[in-house]
């Protein structure tokens, strides 16, 4: 562009210095025969206009076919002179308006209409009509050239020919002269140009008219040029949208007033200008050929559309294929998801049904929402019996003691309402056959995605077996404890016999003394009575010992009773008195009267204290020096449990066995079985207590056990 602009500038400098200050008006001219030809042809016209319209300076801007559209679109020119085809397009697209139509000069005849010429070399005898064009090598000026292609195309089309499809080759020469030269030189067989080109070239001596022949020649009066097509109005001179109407009018007047013989007209080889013609015939041409701006005309066929919009079609097709693939993919994905979902559901069901615990879901209304297989196996209720029905009324209506269990006290519903998981250790559920079974169960709230509770899940376990095993273990423990007690009694027998023998001796002796006193008639009645009373209390003492003994040895019913541990300790001391004396042990009792009672098996607690006390006494039997003191203390700590400590002043515990003291068969005694502490531990733990060793200052050992004052409460240590 730059060189051209520079050239233009230079031309302006030459043509009129001093006019540089005038408003520059640009006239775009379709340069269908080359830029230089365009300048030569149209610059005089521009100069004419500049001269006729003061204050304005006109310049010619040659534009080739590709440049016309952008020049108008971007307002680079103020007026445009182009062929009717381009005009029609620009009129529709950029609303340009024709202000004059060229009165073209062909030889001496002026015409404001023109047509297309289809021609071949005259020596081509095989090419005589439009039909003969089929299979020939064709050349036109340009795809947008009205006279140089589109007019001829329309004529061919009426004969059912398509230059693209029906030719051996189809090319464009770019300018008319080139098409003429190509035909003349035999590079193509048929050319398409506008009227008057051949005549002008012949006049210029470039060709010889006789070398060519016109195909499908048309003749009509008043138009003397060779032509093959209908006539169409000549080039219009148009104003671009932004150009003011005032200027356009002045230009139009100047053009229409140009004399046909004006030098500028002669330079441009035209005979002045006429009022703008009707360009409807051009519109029709474009509609028929479905060329822009009528590419969307109603006669659009599918083939046309495909040809025209093949890329859109391709895009659409690709898109369609893509969608098809996507759909396939999505549907396969969906299928896989469904499969996975089914698998998951099966898995979930399998898991639910494989669990040995019964599981039911409960909604907020208390109705069962699901039940697993174990539930059916345990309770006999089929899932169908339960689902949608109130679980409490079916499973949970009555307590273990036979009293009704009100629904408002049901832990499952409580969980639904307060969202707190619950674990119930000891309850009963009711089977379909009307029997009940012991269960432990948990009730956990079910929350949806919004963390809103929608019900609860109840997981329960039939604890019959465990209860039975636990009872058996308890029984076993009791039996073991009993055997151990008998064994202890065996070991203590002689001592206890001695203990009973003492009061018996006193009784017998006193009785004999009384007899003698009475026989001697010494009159000591008071004294005799006194002695008799003593006999009574001594008999009671013996009876007491025997009672303790029997209590200790008897196989007690496993029923808890309220016992006072202080009392138990005194009983144990009684039984141990012989051993205490034998080993010269002193007893220090520090019993807290406020310890309260514990729920326990009397005999077993007896046994634990006896075990600990005997261990303590035996531990001290071997020490040579120092006091042998057995201290037993009771305390009530935190009102929750009774703490009993048994402390001796013996040699203390062997660190090697201290960790395993409570394991069975661990003993430091030559004749011991090693069961005492193990059994004691079993007993204390069965009473929900704890037994352990505490460090003691100096030598000696201290055993401590804790028993809850309330049997329900576990000791927290």
């Amino acid at each position, binding site marked *: 562009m730059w060189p051209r602009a520079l050239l233009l500038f230079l031309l302006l400098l030459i043509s009129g210095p001093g006019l540089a200050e005038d408003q520059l008006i640009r006239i775009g001219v379709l340069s269908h025969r080359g830029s230089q030809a365009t300048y030569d042809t149209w610059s005089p016209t521009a100069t004419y206009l500049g001269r006729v319209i003061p204050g304005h300076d006109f310049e010619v801007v040659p534009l080739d076919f590709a440049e016309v559209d952008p020049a108008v679109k971007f307002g680079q020119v103020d007026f445009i002179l182009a062929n009717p085809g381009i005009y029609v397009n620009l009129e529709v697209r950029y609303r340009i308006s024709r202000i004059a139509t060229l009165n073209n000069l062909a030889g001496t005849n002026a015409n404001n209409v023109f047509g297309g010429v289809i021609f071949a070399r005259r020596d081509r005898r095989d090419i005589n009509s439009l039909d003969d064009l089929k299979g020939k090598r064709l050349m036109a000026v340009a795809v947008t050239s009205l006279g140089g292609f589109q007019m001829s195309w329309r004529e061919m089309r009426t004969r059912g020919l398509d230059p693209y499809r029906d030719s051996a080759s189809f090319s464009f020469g770019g300018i008319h002269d080139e098409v003429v030269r190509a035909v003349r030189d035999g590079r193509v067989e048929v050319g398409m140009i506008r009227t008057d080109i051949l005549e002008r070239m012949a006049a210029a001596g470039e060709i010889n008219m006789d070398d060519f022949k016109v195909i499908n020649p048309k003749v009509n009066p008043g138009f003397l040029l060779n032509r093959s097509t209908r006539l169409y109005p000549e080039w219009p001179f148009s104003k671009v949208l932004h150009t003011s109407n005032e200027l356009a009018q002045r230009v139009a007047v100047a053009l229409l007033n140009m004399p046909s013989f004006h030098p500028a007209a002669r330079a441009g080889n035209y005979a002045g200008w006429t009022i703008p013609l009707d360009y409807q015939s051009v519109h029709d041409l474009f509609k028929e050929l479905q060329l822009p701006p009528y590419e969307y005309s109603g006669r659009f066929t599918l083939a046309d559309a495909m040809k025209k919009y093949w890329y859109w079609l391709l895009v659409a097709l690709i898109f369609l294929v893509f969608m098809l693939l996507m759909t396939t993919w999505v549907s396969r994905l969906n299928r896989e998801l469904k499969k996975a979902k089914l698998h998951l559901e099966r898995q979930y069901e399998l898991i639910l049904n494989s669990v040995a615990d019964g599981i039911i879901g409960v909604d907020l209304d208390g109705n069962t929402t699901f039940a697993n297989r174990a539930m059916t196996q345990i309770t006999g209720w089929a899932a169908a019996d339960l689902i949608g029905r109130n679980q409490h009324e079916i499973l949970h209506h009555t307590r273990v003691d036979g009293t009704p269990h009100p629904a408002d006290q049901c832990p499952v519903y409580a969980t639904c309402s307060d969202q707190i998981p619950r674990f119930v250790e000891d309850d009963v559920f009711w089977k379909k056959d009307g029997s009940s079974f012991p269960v432990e169960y948990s009730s956990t709230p079910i929350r949806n995605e919004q963390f809103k509770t929608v019900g609860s899940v109840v997981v329960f376990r039939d604890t019959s077996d465990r209860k039975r095993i636990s009872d058996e273990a308890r029984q076993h423990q009791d039996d073991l404890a009993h055997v151990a007690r008998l064994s202890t009694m065996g070991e203590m027998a*002689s001592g206890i*016999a*001695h203990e009973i*023998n*003492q*009061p*018996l*001796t*006193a*009784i*017998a*002796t*006193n009785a*004999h*003394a*009384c007899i*003698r*006193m009475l026989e*001697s008639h010494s009159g000591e009645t008071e004294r005799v009575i006194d*002695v008799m009373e*003593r006999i009574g209390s*001594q008999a009671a*003492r013996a009876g007491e010992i025997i009672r303790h003994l029997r209590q200790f040895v008897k196989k007690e019913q496993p029923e808890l009773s309220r016992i006072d541990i202080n009392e138990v300790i005194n009983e144990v001391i009684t039984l141990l008195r012989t051993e205490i*004396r*034998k080993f*010269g042990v002193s007893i220090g009792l520090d019993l807290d009267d406020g310890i309260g009672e514990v729920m326990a098996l009397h005999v077993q607690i007896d046994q634990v204290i006896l075990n600990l006390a005997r261990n303590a006494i035996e531990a001290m039997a071997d020490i040579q020096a120092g006091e042998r003191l057995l201290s037993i203390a009771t305390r009530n700590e935190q009102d929750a449990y009774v703490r009993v400590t048994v402390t001796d002043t013996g040699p203390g515990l062997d660190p090697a066995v201290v960790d395993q003291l409570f394991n069975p068969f661990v003993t430091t005694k030559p004749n011991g079985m090693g069961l005492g502490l193990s059994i004691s531990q079993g007993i204390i733990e069965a009473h929900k207590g704890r037994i352990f060793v505490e460090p003691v200052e100096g030598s000696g050992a201290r055993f401590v056990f804790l028993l809850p004052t309330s049997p329900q409460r576990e000791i927290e240590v």
Partner: protein
Amino acid sequence: MSESTVFIIDDDREVREALQLLMESVGLNVVSFDSANAYLEQFDAARPGCIILDVRMPGMSGLDLQNLLLEQPLCPPIIIITGHGDVPMAVRAVQAGAVDFIQKPFNDQALLDSVHRALEHDARQRGEASHIAEIKQKLSRLTPREREVLELVVQGLRNKLIASELSVSQSTVEAHRAKVMEKMEAKTLSDLMRMMLTLESQ
């Protein structure tokens, strides 16, 4: 000489008091103690009597006490009382010198008989002791020549043999002999002989 006393040593108050009552019911003099140590604190060898001792007691046991007392020149007879199962211990006590052992609960008559026997034994033991002391005291009144004569008389020698043995006249021997009989307060030769045998048996 003071009256014989029954010393009861038992840690069990009931048994101790019952024993005391039984002893008192037959008119015996009784002192009771609750431990061996308590008895030892007031022990007086000159006090006649017997001991009823419980074998099994805290502190000093019955056997320990018995061993201590046997070291004394004059030990009161000891009756061991024992509970069931203490029999081996009682046997040991008897072998060590206890006069008897009685198993609890006891037959009152058996115990009382045993106590009487013990008291007699004590009296006898104490009687013999005083007789010997008397003889020794008489013997101490003799002159050395009279002792020589006495010893020869006890050997059964005639006066003539004694005179030749001592190289004195027969009449001198007779005078000494009369003096010995007088001092020893012996009426006959056999009295004298018995006294000397008693001494020898010591």
